[in-house]
C-alpha cells in the first residue's frame, strides 16, 4: 500500500474515531486528537515531507468536518507539527514506544498551543484550552498514540527505523 493511500485510510479512520468520540463524550477534542496521531505516525515513519503533507491534509479534514468558522488553522498547525516531528525523526532515534509517546505528547501540546496562537493572531474566536486540559489532552494522546503506534507497527509491519 502506498504511503498516500495508507495516509488517506488512516485519516478516514481518524474521521470515524472523532465522529464516534463526539457521540460519546462532549468535546472529544479536549481529550484526544486522532488526526494528530495520524500525522505524528506518518512523520515518524515517512519523514518530514510526508509528515508535513499528511499534517496539512489531516488539518484540512479536521477543519472542514469538525473545525470552526475559519478553515486552515488546524491544517497550518498540523503541517508544522508534522514537519517538526519528521525532522526530529530524522535527527534522533525515536524507536521505542516511550519515545514515540513523548513525541506525541510534545506534538499534541505544540499543536494545541499553535492553534490557539494562530486563532489569536487572526482574531478568530476560539475556545481557550486551560493548561490542565492541555496537559490532559497531550497525555492522553501520548498514551493512546504510543499504544496505537505499537499496535499498528505490529499489524502492518512496516517501520522506518
Amino acid at each position, binding site marked *: 500500500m502506498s504511503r498516500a493511500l495508507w495516509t488517506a485510510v488512516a485519516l478516514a479512520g481518524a474521521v470515524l474515531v472523532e465522529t464516534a468520540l463526539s457521540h460519546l463524550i462532549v468535546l472529544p477534542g479536549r481529550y484526544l486528537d486522532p488526526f494528530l496521531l495520524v500525522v505524528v505516525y506518518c512523520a515518524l515513519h515517512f*519523514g*518530514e*515531507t510526508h509528515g*508535513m*503533507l499528511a499534517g*496539512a491534509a489531516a488539518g484540512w479534514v479536521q477543519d472542514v468536518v469538525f473545525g470552526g*468558522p*475559519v*478553515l*486552515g*488553522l488546524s*491544517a*497550518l498547525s498540523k*503541517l*508544522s507539527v508534522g*514537519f517538526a516531528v*519528521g525532522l526530529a525523526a530524522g535527527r534522533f532515534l525515536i524507536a521505542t514506544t516511550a519515545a514515540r509517546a513523548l513525541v506525541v505528547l510534545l506534538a499534541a501540546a505544540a499543536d494545541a498551543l499553535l492553534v490557539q496562537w*494562530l486563532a489569536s493572531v*487572526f*482574531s*478568530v474566536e476560539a475556545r481557550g484550552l486551560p493548561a490542565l486540559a492541555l496537559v490532559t489532552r497531550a497525555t492522553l494522546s501520548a498514551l493512546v498514540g504510543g499504544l496505537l503506534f505499537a499496535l499498528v507497527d505490529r499489524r502492518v509491519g512496516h517501520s522506518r527505523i
Partner: protein
Amino acid sequence: MAQAAPARRSRFLLVGLILAHLTAISHQVDGGSGASLLQRALLSVVTPLQRLVGGTAFLATELWRGWGFHRETYAENRALREQVRSLETELQLRAHRAQEAVRLRELLALQQAVPLDTLAAQVVGRDGVPWFRSLTLDKGEADGVKLDAAVISATGVVGRVFATGPHAARVQVLLDRDSGAAALVERSRVSGVVSGQVSTAEAGAEDLALKYVSERADVVVGDVVVTSGLDRIFPKGLVIGRVRSVGDVTGLFREIRVEPSARFDRLEEVLVLKGSPPALETPRSVE
C-alpha cells in the same frame, strides 16, 4: 549532498504550504471592515500599485489631452492670426477707399466750383531728385493736358505742367524755387508773386515766398493769398495759402512767408485745367 536536496525541497515546500495556509486563513478572517484579512493585505499591497498605475495613466491622459489642447490652441491661434491679418488688410483697404472717396468728393466739389474745363489726374510720382519739386501725373497729351496747364487740388494751387508726354505729365509745384504764380492778398488786394524758396529740402523750405510786395503794403499774418490770374496760367481766385510771417524790409520789398494750403506731401489726385484761363480785359490805352 544527496540528502541535502530533498531536505531543501521539503523546506521550500514547508514555506510554501505555510504561506498558502496563511493566505487561506486570511481570506476567511474578517478584517473588521467587511473585508477579509487577505483582502485587506492584498488591498494594502495592490492599492498603492493601483494608485501608481492610475496616477500614471491619469498623468499620461492629462499630458495627451494637454498636448492635444495645445495643438488645437496653436492651430486656432494661427488661424486667428491669419484672420486678424486678413481683417487688418481689409480694414486698411476700406480706410484707404474711404479716404479716397473723401478726396474724390473734395475734388469733385472743386471741379464743379471751377468754371473751366478740368481733368482729374492721379499723382503717380513725385520728387525724383532733390533739386526740383515736381510731380508726375497719369494723364498726358492724349488726355488733353497741355504745357503750362494749371494744376490745382481741393485745398489749393499745386503748380503747372512743365512737361508732357502722351500719357503722363510733369508738374512743377509751387514749392520749387523756379516756379511762380501771380498772387494777391485777398483782404487788402495787394499783389505779388508767389514762388518756392529753395530747391533742396531745408528747414523752412515748405513755405512759399510772396515776393515784390512793397514795404508799405497792408499785409498781416493770417491773410489769405489767392491767385490773381495775371500770369495767364492760374485762374483768378484760387487759394494759394495763408501768410505765416511778415518779415523785415529787404531793399524795396518785404519778406513775406506764405504757408501753402495745398498739402504737397499728400497729393494723390489733382485737377488739370484743360483750357486757358479767360483772358483779362486789357485797357485800350495799353493796347
